[in-house]
C-alpha cells in the first residue's frame, strides 16, 4: 500500500522547484478558477464640513421655519 512517507518523498520532490504562482497556474490549467482578493481598506471618514452641509439644523434650511410655523 502507498504510505504517507513514500508519497511525501515523491510529491515533495516533484513540487520542490514550483513556486506558489506555478501551482496556481497549473491548477488553472486543470480548470480551477480564481478571483484576486482585493485589499480591504478602512472606509474613509467623511469630512465634518460635509456632515454640516447635510444637517437639517442648517440655518438656511427653509423647511425648519415652515414646520415651526
Amino acid at each position: 500500500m502507498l504510505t504517507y512517507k513514500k508519497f511525501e518523498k515523491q510529491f515533495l520532490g516533484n513540487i520542490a522547484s514550483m513556486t506558489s504562482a506555478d501551482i496556481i497556474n497549473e491548477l488553472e490549467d486543470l480548470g480551477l478558477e480564481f478571483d484576486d482578493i482585493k485589499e480591504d481598506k478602512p472606509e474613509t471618514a467623511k469630512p465634518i464640513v460635509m456632515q454640516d452641509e447635510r444637517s437639517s439644523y442648517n440655518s438656511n434650511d427653509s423647511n425648519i421655519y415652515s414646520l415651526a410655523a
Partner: protein
Amino acid sequence: MTLSKVVLYKKNRKIKGYHGTDLNNRQGIVDNNYNESKSNEWLGDGVYFFIEKVQNEPVKDAENWAITEAWDNTKRKYKYNEYVVLESEIKINPDKLLDLDTEDGIKIFNEVRSTIEKSIVNENKKIKSSVKRTQIDNIIFTFLKKKSSIEFVKSKMYIKFENTRKYLIESRIPNVCILSVSNPKKNIQKKTINEVKKGVINDVDI
C-alpha cells in the same frame, strides 16, 4: 481489516470492477479498452468502477449509474435507451493506490490540499464562488496524480442516482465505493472485459 482490503494490498492483485455505460460503447471498450474520462466531480481523471458493496452490490450500482447518466437534463430526453454493465479485472499495484478509507490515504490528500491552500494564500487569491466543492476535490486529485506515481484512487462516496438526483437529496454519507483507474491499457487486461448485464431504459423511469 475486511477481506477486500487484504486482497487489495497484496502485490499486483486483481480485483473485479463494474462499469455502467451506453450499450453503444460496449464494442469499442471490448475491442480497444477503456478511455479515461475527464471527471468533473469525483476522483480525478480516470476510468471509474464500482468495486465494493456499500448500500447495494457494485454491479447494481453500475446499472443504476448507467440509467442515471442516460438522462440529459438540458435536452429533457435520454441520450441512450440501452445500457450495459461491464465487469473488468483491474491489476492493482498497491504502491500506486491511494486508498481514502485508510489513515495514510486521508493524510496524503490533506497534504496536497494544504500545499494548494498555501499557494492560494501566498498569491492572495480565492476560488471563484461558482466552483463546486466536488470540482475542487476533483482537481486536487488530478493534481495529486500528476505529481506522484498514483494510478488508482479508491474511496467510498455519495453519488446521486435517479431519485436522489431528481429530488435533490444531497448527503455526505457514502452510498458507493468507487475506484478511479489511470492508464487503463496497462492496468486493465482487455480480454477480462465482459458484459454482465444489459437493459432497456423505460421512458417513465425518470
